[in-house]
């Protein structure tokens, strides 16, 4: 059952093989104190939310949305397992709970309930043991700007009890590997955004952790820098490191990860290899048509058109899965106009993680 058992080796029996395990991991952020009322949790239930009154976090409760005074459910029972040596992706839109997940796994956020283990160490009861085994690359570079580049690495190593005689050669090797060796004695502020992100990767590696976490590592980087960062991450993966990366870029997850967990609103929707996930995507090209009125009115007529595999309405948006690519567009427009609606926008998406996400959530990734 445990996929990690496939990877048997000579490790001591106390260190479980799974790099990361989470069981029913939940995180609820209490409502804003300013709007907190004394009436107990039942009065803080988001108004209009389906589910059970007084039980924030029940399925159906939209997390990431902050009703006045209400609790925010960032994660509602995440179960997953990351294998040793795996490049694991957490893919989801902003507010899906990715950063909260990383926060819990890196001991910076306390889970409300459930357990999370890093190499068998519980994040809640043994945060020190967990920190010993992880390296973290934050969403935005946060180097110590009072220190130069090399000092950033050597001091970070010292925070892990590594003497500078060991750390300094290791830091220089990492800077060379990440192609920023010439910046060793530079101030951090003299580096570009991409170089700072590389410094963050070097910092996450300096104490040789078992698991590396990257939280949206390429947000805000130009395309070329992003590609070179991808190469670096591929290199780290090839060295056999366990990597967990969050991203809301479908392509990034697809190209880099061994397995991808698609998360939305604090829930795990899908978990598989990119190939298996894409096979699971509904067939055909997704044609999304924005209309001037309710798409329900033309839904039935659309379904009868040639080449239409499936059609759904979401308010004013009509989603059509077509096995004829974009050739269904003009008949769909005709049907819409016959139904008295104007077309305001049309978009096409090939079968992909994106169309899988849309099919599962009714929303787009970004």
């Amino acid at each position: 059952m445990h996929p990690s058992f496939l990877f048997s080796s000579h490790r001591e029996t106390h260190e479980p093989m799974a790099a990361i395990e989470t069981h029913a991991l939940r995180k609820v952020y209490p409502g804003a104190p300013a709007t907190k009322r004394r009436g107990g949790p039942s009065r803080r239930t988001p108004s209009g939310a389906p589910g059970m009154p007084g039980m924030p976090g029940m399925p159906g409760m939209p997390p990431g949305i902050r009703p006045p005074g209400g609790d925010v459910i960032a994660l509602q029972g995440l179960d997953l397992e990351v294998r040793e040596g795996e490049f694991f992706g957490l893919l989801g839109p902003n507010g899906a709970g990715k950063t909260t997940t990383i926060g819990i796994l890196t001991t910076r956020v306390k889970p409300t309930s459930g357990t999370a283990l890093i190499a068998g160490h519980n994040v809640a009861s043994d945060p020190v043991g967990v920190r010993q085994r992880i390296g973290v690359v934050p969403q935005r570079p946060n180097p110590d700007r009072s220190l130069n580049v090399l000092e950033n690495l050597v001091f970070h190593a010292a925070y892990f009890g590594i003497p500078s005689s060991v750390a300094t050669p290791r830091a220089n090797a990492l800077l060379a590997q990440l192609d920023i060796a010439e910046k060793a004695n530079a101030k951090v502020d003299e580096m570009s955004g991409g170089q700072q992100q590389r410094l963050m990767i070097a910092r996450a590696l300096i104490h040789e952790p078992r698991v590396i976490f990257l939280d949206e590592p390429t947000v805000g980087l130009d395309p070329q820098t992003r590609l070179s960062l991808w190469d670096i991450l591929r290199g780290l993966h090839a060295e056999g490191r366990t990597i967990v990366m969050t991203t809301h870029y479908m392509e990034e997850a697809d190209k880099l990860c061994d397995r991808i967990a698609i998360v939305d609103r604090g829930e795990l929707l899908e978990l598989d290899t990119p190939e298996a996930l894409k096979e699971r995507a509904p067939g055909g090209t997704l044609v999304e048509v924005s209309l001037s009125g309710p798409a329900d009115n033309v839904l039935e007529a659309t379904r009868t058109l040639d080449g239409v595999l499936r059609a759904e309405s979401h308010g004013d948006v009509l989603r059509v899965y077509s096995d004829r690519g974009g050739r269904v567009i003009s008949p769909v427009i005709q049907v819409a106009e016959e139904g008295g609606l104007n077309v305001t926008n049309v978009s096409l998406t090939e079968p992909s993680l994106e169309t899988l996400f849309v099919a599962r959530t009714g929303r787009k990734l970004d």
Partner: protein
Amino acid sequence: MNVSVFFALLRRDIRVARKELLFFLIRTTMQPLLFVIVFGYLLPKMNFSQPGYQTVLLPGILAVSLSLSAIQSVALPMVQDFGWTKEIEDRLLAPVPTPLIAAEKIVAAMIQGTIAAAFVLPIARLVMGPIAGLTLAHGGEVALIVLLGSFAFSSLGMWLGTAIPPQQIGLMFSVIVAPMLFFGCAYYPWRGLDVVPVMKYLVLVNPMVYVAEGMRGALTPNVPHMPLAAVGLALVIIAVVFWVLGMRSFYKRAIG
């Protein structure tokens, strides 16, 4: 492990403080030194103050330098780090209990407070000229007051720096720090407040009073001052309260 990491953190702060020593000293000692020039040099020269006022003023100035720099050395980095730069996050990932990281910040600020006071003392003495009744004979008592005073104010800095929203940090100086300086018996002895009894007892909530009076007891014992035992006890209580508040507030900011 914890000890070696603690010293690594301390080494980092000392390295950074050394790079910025001049700016640090200007930032934290400018205000007390200007006071020394106006009240310890100009006014006596104009005969606007009584002879002996400098004896009262000097320990107070040292107390202000110590306290102000101890507060600032923690509060400002905390506000910056948690507010926007997030730079402290590399230290929050260190494999040690989170309160140890806060404790190190407090110790670093105690050292900086002590340096600021040690820097001000000779300059003040130089500007004001010979000061009647000043003695360095009670070194142990001076050290104790410096230790307790810097501990209390660094802990206060930790609390303020982590509990106050970053955009209101300016308010902290005008609403909390400034009244603390002016009603802290730094520029007049506590016994002088006999003339305004209400105030004499109101100011007892101000931790600065004990540092200033303690400095008087240790450096200028001939000036009427609070008993050192009372000063020591008050500072211990204040330090423990601020320590607990500061640690709790730091933890809340560090772990979501």
